[in-house]
């Protein structure tokens, strides 16, 4: 639904994920990960999403930014971080078994919550760095029957808010498309430089409202049967000696052992 009026209203979809520095361990059942000891943060690509919503509001002078997430109660912390950056309010679609969901069921929950809200743009990260599926943004656009621009590295919204020009990163270059609004935009790294926020801002953000919604999560169509670690690499070899000899040995190994070069 188009926001209309003077300002610009944005929705930012967020997922709370383990920090990228985390060592990920498989749980006893073999289908999930051990949560204990992990530091959870807002998905890094979602930070570019919220930053773009903030910049868009700065351009138009006013407007509301709503953060929507599907996840357990702890997802609130990541939401507060976005509040501290400047987002106004949040919707937490409570789901205590996130590891059982697939992207479609998450997108269906988001669509149900967002359908009756007012927005000009919906921002998502291009993918979450935990499951790396990269599906939710495009699925959400389809379920809401609005267009999408994915993996966007630059966005210019027209003054009348009826359209935008999006620069999408593609193999070996970029694709520039014009897109009607409202639309889903998924953020690539490089879209902007997310602002820093302070502990004080995070504390102040405690008073911003989060509406918790209970929802029957639709059945997943795909299911993780088991998780496994990547195969261990065979032990390597440190080449030692004078630079010239070492390089000769390396090139010889690449040619004759690995057979990678002619």
């Amino acid at each position, binding site marked *: 639904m188009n926001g209309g009026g003077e300002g610009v209203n944005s929705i930012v979809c967020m997922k709370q994920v383990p920090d*990228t*520095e985390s*060592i*990920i361990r498989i749980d006893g059942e073999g289908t999930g*990960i051990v949560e204990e000891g992990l530091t959870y943060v807002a998905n890094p*690509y979602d930070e570019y999403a919220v930053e773009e919503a903030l910049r868009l509001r700065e351009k138009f002078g006013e407007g509301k930014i709503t953060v929507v997430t599907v996840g357990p109660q702890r997802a609130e912390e990541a939401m507060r971080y976005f509040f501290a950056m400047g987002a106004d309010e949040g919707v937490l679609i409570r789901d205590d078994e996130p590891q059982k969901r697939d*992207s*479609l069921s998450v*997108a269906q929950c988001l669509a149900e919550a967002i359908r009756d809200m007012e927005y000009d743009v919906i921002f998502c990260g291009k993918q979450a*760095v*935990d*499951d*790396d*599926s*990269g*599906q*939710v943004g*495009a*699925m959400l656009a*389809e379920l809401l029957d609005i267009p*999408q*621009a*994915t993996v966007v*590295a630059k966005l210019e919204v027209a003054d009348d808010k009826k359209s935008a*020009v999006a620069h*999408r990163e593609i*193999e*070996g270059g*970029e*694709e520039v498309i014009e*897109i009607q609004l409202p639309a889903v935009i998924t953020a*690539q*790294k490089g879209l902007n430089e997310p602002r820093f926020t302070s502990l004080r801002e995070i504390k102040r953000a405690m008073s911003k409202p989060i509406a918790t919604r209970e929802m029957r999560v639709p059945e*997943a*169509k*795909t*299911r*993780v*049967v088991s*998780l*496994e*670690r*990547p195969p261990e*690499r*065979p032990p*390597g*070899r*440190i*080449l030692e000696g004078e*630079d010239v000899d070492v*390089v*000769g040995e390396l*090139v010889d*190994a*690449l*040619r004759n052992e*690995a057979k*990678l*070069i*002619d």
Partner: protein
Amino acid sequence: MAGIWIFPEQINGELKKVSFELLSVGRRLADKAGEELGALLLGSGVEMLASELAKYGADKVFLADSADLKDFLTEAYTSVICDAVGANEPSVILFSATTLGRDLAPRVAARLGTGLATDCTELDIDDTGRLTVKRPLFAGKLFANVAFDNGKPQIASVRPNVIPVQEDSKAGEVVRLEVRIDPSRVRTKLKEIKKETGARVDLTEAKFIVSGGRGMKGPENFSILENLAVTLGSEATVGASRSAVDAGWRPHSDQVGQTGKTVTPDLYIACGISGAIQHLAGMSSSKYIVAINKDPDAPIFKKADYGIVGDLFKIVPLITEELKKSGKK
């Protein structure tokens, strides 16, 4: 009806390498499930590609040829694909996990209300036609075996560069599809495709990657990596670690790792990269890894097949010279 379908991609009237990879994996699944392999070809003036799709295993080529499909527009393509699926009811559709496939496949899956597994590295099918796949999580820190429980078609996208290509000549009977697109439902327009000047092969499709990290000390020094990549040939390109990208030395599109690209080249040469966990996640599936670093304790050496402890500014140019001397390519 049934059938395993693949969605080939073409650029300027030539099939992309990933399309042959899809044909090869699709052929294997079709044989195992006892089904036909169909290639769902969309574009404008692309019929001449049918014979090549047949040569690599397509029993049928479902052809949607229309001026309206000249440019890739998500909504137009989604609509044509979903019409074709409705009329022919394939049991599986495979896309490539390219930027196009990543944009298109989820939209198609959502419209059909079916499951999608992205970026798969292994695919299998059982007697009852149920697809199972393996796909990386956390940029490759873990892999998940995923089953499809409900609904058809089962949709997956396949990671470029992991499926060996095999010729397997089939009939490739062309089945023309009626193209009906409601223009009011196509709400994007292609303005321009900008190619990077002097762009080399994309990281995700490269056979050789020469990658630089903090140890490169500055953007100007990446020229020695460029030189090595040029010497390795047209299938080689240059990558970077997150610290090199965050320092502004390289564009983000060069970044390898958890907030960049996950890569699977035959050879990954890590220069001045210590090997932070999110970087290792993105390149550990490379066939061979060479690490050059002055710190003997750098974690990258644990992943390397060949390690050189030393000064990359001396060693990298020597490698280039040695390759030139011995007439590589």
